């Protein structure tokens, strides 16, 4: 007798998630680290007087255009990072690697711009409370940016090694996820330290 049992179409193969989840945990940790630093900054700022005014900055002038350009560069790098991921998922390796390289270059450009802006401010570490706090919080955020760049670079290497496609792009996807967070972290730092001041 013929077997009339219908054959079900097999579902989509599962995507590996462990690295993505671990990156999510790492992002939660990094967010809390930035929160701890910024919270301490705000508490010290508040404790220096209800209206810190120029005494808090002690004559320092924040180069807003330079910081704005740096922020825009960072946001642009998010676009290129997602482009890299999109291309990697479609196995378009040429575009994926181009986009990864572009993201890294933009990230380095961002770091360069922030350091230039700090130099322009003539921020002298040890000269006051605001300079010390600004250095510490900015340095922490920049360290996160550098870690994000290294993560992107290493996962880019994995991509070169063949981790592409819908399911193979998890490593690169995790790195891009972290890069998104890095942009959020920098935005919070920039706002607290250089806009609210």
């Amino acid at each position, binding site marked *: 007798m013929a077997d009339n049992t219908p054959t079900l179409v097999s579902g989509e*193969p*599962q*995507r*590996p*998630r*462990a690295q*993505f*989840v671990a990156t*999510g*945990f790492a*992002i*939660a940790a990094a*967010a*809390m680290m*930035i*929160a*701890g630093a*910024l*919270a*301490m900054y*705000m*508490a010290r700022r*508040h*404790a220096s007087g*209800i209206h810190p005014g120029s005494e808090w900055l002690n004559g320092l002038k924040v180069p807003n255009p330079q910081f704005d350009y740096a922020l825009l560069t960072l946001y642009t790098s998010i676009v290129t990072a997602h482009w890299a991921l999109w291309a990697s998922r479609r196995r378009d390796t040429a575009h994926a690697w181009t986009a990864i390289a572009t993201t890294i270059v933009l990230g380095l450009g961002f770091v360069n711009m922030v350091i230039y802006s700090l130099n322009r401010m003539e921020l002298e570490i040890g000269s006051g409370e605001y300079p010390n706090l600004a250095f510490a919080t900015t340095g922490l955020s920049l360290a996160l940016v550098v870690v994000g760049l*290294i993560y992107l670079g*290493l996962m880019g*290497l*994995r991509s070169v*090694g*063949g*981790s592409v496609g819908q399911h193979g792009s998890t490593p690169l996807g995790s790195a891009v996820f972290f890069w998104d967070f890095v942009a959020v972290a920098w935005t919070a730092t920039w706002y607290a330290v250089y806009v609210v001041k």
Partner: protein
Amino acid sequence: MLGIASRYFAGRIAVAAAAAIILGIVTGLDETGHVVMFGTIVLGTAAAAFALLTALALSLGDNDSIDRERSHSYPATPAYWPVMSAFGLGLLMVGLTTDGFIAILGLATIITASVEWTVSAWADRLSKDQVANATERDRLIAPFEIPLYGALSIAIPVLLISRVFLAASRNNASWIALGLSSLVLAFAFVLYAKPEIRRAIVATALVAAGAGLIVAGITSAAIGERDFHPHEVHQDEDIEHENDSEATDYEEHSQALNPARIVVR
């Protein structure tokens, strides 16, 4: 249906957000509550972090197991990279408070370990044949590893031994050199005479020697170089002094050969 992890993380969002809002309101009203702002920012961020974990838990669902199977089919192979990273971090910590060069060394160690680690992780996933994976890994990274580690394995002992020699006095340095070379000779002789000696004993001896060298080198570097007394040579009297010294040397040499000879000036 929400699994318990999702529900738990979601509940924590609510609690953290509520606490942040309460503390934020209190901060606005209470002039002495400066410190509470710390709590507001941190708890608010915690609520966001819990939201992220909730989203992760929801996206995973409760039945995912691809990672379990992958981990079992492509197991991670043992490697020195974790220890190397930890060592690099230790160097970085010490270097940040002492010498910038040590910090850079630490950073370089961490980055090297990270690259090696990434390549190992890539190689582990190539196939289920661990031997073939190792071969592929070596093919890719050995051209970098061999010259780098080879150079380091020469440079680091040389650097450490040089610190020991520079810290010791002139005579002691000679004795140390004599002692060290005798030890090496004796060890080589033992290896030759007893080829059946256990590998573990040899490895332990080498590790102990390496550790001793590192400790001695670092201690000597901390102590610093001994005082050197360079000769002062004046230009006008150079030739005269040279002639004098040559004459003196000649005289000394002559006297040594002919002790009875008396030189009268």
